[in-house]
C-alpha cells in the first residue's frame, strides 16, 4: 500500500506537469506580449498617477494621492460617472438584445438573410470619423433630416404625440447641443454602431448549435419559436452570451470615439457626455496632465474590473459549455 501511495505521489506532479507544460508553452507568446504591450504601460500609468508629470517636462514630483483626491471632489467628475453609467446601462442591454434578435431573425431567413446581415454590419465597418460627420448633419437642428422629418408631421394627426406637439410648437431638440438629449443621442449611436457586431458574434455562436437538437425539441412538442429558443438556442448560446455581454460592457465603458468626434472640446453640453474614457483622453492627452489622466485610468480599471467580476460571477454560473 505504501509503495503504491509512493508511486502515486511520485507520478502525479509529473503528469500534471506534462499538460501544464504544453499549456504554458501555448500561452507563453500571448502572455509575453500581454505583459510587454499591455501590462508594462499600465504599471507605468500606475506609477505616473502618483506624480504631476506633464509631457515635455524634464522631471516630475510625487504628489501622493492628490490626483485621486481631486477625482472625488469636483462636480465634473460626478458628471463623468453619471454619463458613463447612463451610457453603459442603456447601451449594453439594448445592443445585446438587438444583436441577438437580429441574429435570430437573419439566421431563420437563410440565404435572403445575408442581405440584412451585411446591412446591419455596415455601421461596424464604417469609419467612425466620417459617420460622425454624417450624423452631425442628420442631427442638425434645422437642416438635418431628422428634425425635418419630424417637422413633416406638424399639422398632421401625428401631432397628438407629445414629443411632436412640443417640437412643432417650440422647435425640435438641438440633439447634440442639447444637454437633455446629448447623452441619449450618444447612446443611440452607440447602439446603432455596436449591435451589428453583437449580431455577427451571435451568428457565429448559432453555428455551434447542433441542428438535431432543434429536431428533438420539435418532437418534444416545442411548438413556438420561443420555446425552441428557450430549450435549445439560448442555452447553446451561453458561451457566446458571456462573451458578448462582457465585451459590450467593456466597450461601453470605453466609449470614446463618438464623444471625441461630436464634442472634441469638453464632453458635450454641460458635460452631459463626459464619459470616463474621454476624461482620460482630455486630461492625459489634450491637456497633457499625465498624472491626473493616469489616476483616472487607474480608477477606471479598478472600477470596471470590479463590475466585470460581479457580472462574470453572475453569468458564468449559469452557463453550460459544450
Amino acid at each position: 500500500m505504501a509503495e503504491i501511495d509512493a508511486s502515486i505521489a511520485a507520478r502525479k506532479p509529473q503528469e500534471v506537469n506534462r499538460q501544464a507544460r504544453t499549456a504554458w508553452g501555448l500561452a507563453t507568446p500571448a502572455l509575453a506580449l500581454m505583459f510587454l504591450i499591455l501590462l508594462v504601460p499600465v504599471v507605468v500609468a500606475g506609477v505616473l498617477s502618483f506624480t504631476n508629470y506633464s509631457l515635455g517636462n524634464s522631471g516630475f514630483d510625487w504628489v501622493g494621492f492628490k490626483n485621486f483626491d481631486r477625482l472625488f471632489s469636483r462636480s465634473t467628475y460626478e458628471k463623468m460617472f453619471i454619463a458613463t453609467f447612463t451610457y453603459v446601462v442603456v447601451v449594453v442591454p439594448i445592443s445585446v438584445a438587438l444583436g441577438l434578435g437580429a441574429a435570430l431573425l437573419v439566421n431563420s431567413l437563410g440565404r435572403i438573410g445575408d442581405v440584412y446581415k451585411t446591412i446591419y454590419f455596415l455601421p461596424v465597418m464604417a469609419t467612425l470619423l466620417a459617420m460622425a460627420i454624417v450624423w452631425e448633419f442628420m442631427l442638425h437642428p434645422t437642416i438635418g433630416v431628422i428634425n425635418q422629418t419630424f417637422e413633416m408631421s406638424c399639422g398632421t394627426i401625428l401631432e397628438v404625440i407629445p414629443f411632436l406637439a412640443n417640437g412643432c410648437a417650440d422647435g425640435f431638440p438641438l440633439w447634440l447641443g442639447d444637454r437633455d438629449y446629448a447623452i441619449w443621442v450618444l447612446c443611440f449611436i452607440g447602439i446603432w454602431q455596436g449591435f451589428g457586431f453583437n449580431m455577427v458574434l451571435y451568428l457565429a455562436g448559432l453555428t455551434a448549435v447542433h441542428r438535431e437538437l432543434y429536431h428533438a425539441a420539435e418532437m418534444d412538442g416545442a411548438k413556438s419559436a420561443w420555446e425552441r429558443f428557450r430549450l435549445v438556442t439560448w442555452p447553446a448560446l451561453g458561451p457566446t452570451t458571456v462573451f458578448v455581454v462582457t465585451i459590450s460592457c467593456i466597450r461601453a465603458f470605453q466609449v470614446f470615439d463618438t464623444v471625441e468626434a461630436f464634442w472634441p472640446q469638453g464632453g458635450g453640453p454641460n458635460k452631459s457626455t463626459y464619459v470616463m474614457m474621454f476624461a482620460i483622453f482630455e486630461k492625459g492627452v489634450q491637456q497633457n496632465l499625465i498624472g491626473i489622466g493616469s489616476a483616472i485610468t487607474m480608477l477606471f480599471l479598478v472600477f470596471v474590473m470590479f463590475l466585470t467580476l460581479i457580472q462574470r460571477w453572475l453569468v458564468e454560473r449559469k452557463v453550460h459549455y459544450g
Partner: protein
Amino acid sequence: MAGLSISSVTKRFGETEVLKGVTLDVADAEFVSLVGPSGCGKSTLLRIIAGLEDPTSGDIAIDGKAVTGTRAADRNLSMVFQSYALYPHLTVAENIAVPLRMRSLSAVQRLPLIGPFLPGAKEQRSEIATAVQSATEMLEIGPLLDRKPGQLSGGQRQRVALGRALVRDPAAFLLDEPLSNLDAKLRVQTRAEIAQLHRRLKATFIYVTHDQVEAMTMSDRIAVMMGGEILQCDAPSVIYEDPSNIRVAEFIGSPKINILPVELANTEMTLFGRVLGYITEAAQAGIYQLGLRPEALKLTQAAPVVTGTVAHMENLGSEVYAQIALANQTSRVTLRAAPAERRNLRLGAEVGLGFSLKDGLIFDADGKRQRRVEVAVTHEREVA
C-alpha cells in the same frame, strides 16, 4: 393511437436519391420493425414521417389525415434519435421531463420563477416527476437523474434518449436503433419493457434496428428496406421462412443463408451434377438458386448430398457455426450445430452434409422467389 400511411415517398439529397418510392401502411397499434443495411434510408424515412425532413415527393398520413405541411411538433409523435440528441445543458431528469413539460404545462406554468406557484401547476409538476421517475427506473438510470449528458456513458445516454421518448403517450413511436449501445442483458430487459408498453398503450411503433433478434421477437411485421425501397413487409416468421426475394433471405438470418446453384432441366433439379429431385409442374429450364438456412443443413455420414472439410469454426457457447468448404467447389456453406456436435467438427475434418429439400428456398437467377417450383422429392436424406 393512430395508423400511419406512407405513400410513394421519395427523397433526394442533391444528386443522390435516398428513398426511391417507399409505400408502407402501418395499422393502428401495430409494431413494425424497419431493418436494412446501413445507409439504406431508414433514418431518413423516420425523419420524414416525423416531419423533420420534407419528402421530395409522396405523402404521409397519420390516422388517415394527410400531414403534409404539418409541423413535427403538431404531429404528436415521439422519437428516439440515432444520435440521441440530448439537451446538453439539462440533467437527465430534465431531459426526460421536457416532452411532458412542453405538452402538459402551459407556457405560463413553465416560467422559471412564478411558474411553480400557479394554480394546478403543482399537481402537474408532481405528475411529471412521477412519470420521469418510473421511466428512469424502468431504464435503470435512476441514480443518474442529476447528471448532465456529458457525464454519462454511451449506453446511459441512449437510455436517457429512450426515456425521453417513452415517457409520453403519443400517436406513434419512432425509435431509431434505441438499444444499439446496450448490453445484452439490459437489451433483453428493455425489449421486454418496450413490448409491454406497446401492449399497454396500444400505440403504433416504428422501430429501426440492426438486431435481428429484436426485429424478430418484437414486431408484428418486419419491413426490409434496401437501397431506398421496401423489399418486403411481412410477419417475422414469413420474412424468415418465406422471403420473396433472395436479398431479403440473405439479409435476414445470421449466419447468412447458404445459396447454392441448382439447375433445372426438363423436370430434373440438379446440384453440382447430382439430381436432387423432380419438379412436379413444368418450370422454365435454367440456373436457379437454392437457399438453405444454416440450421437446415445437417451433419450426416450416410449418403450425404455434399461433402466438404471444416474450414472455420465459431463457438458461441450455446451453438457452433461451422464453415464447410465444399469438396471440388470454391464455395463454402455455413452450418449451425449444437455444441455437442463440436467433436465432429474439428478444423479440417471431412464431413458430409444433408438437407431436406422442403427446407430449401428456390430463387431464380434475378433473385426472385420461385414459389411455383414444387419439387417431388426423390430421396430424403435427413439424419436423426
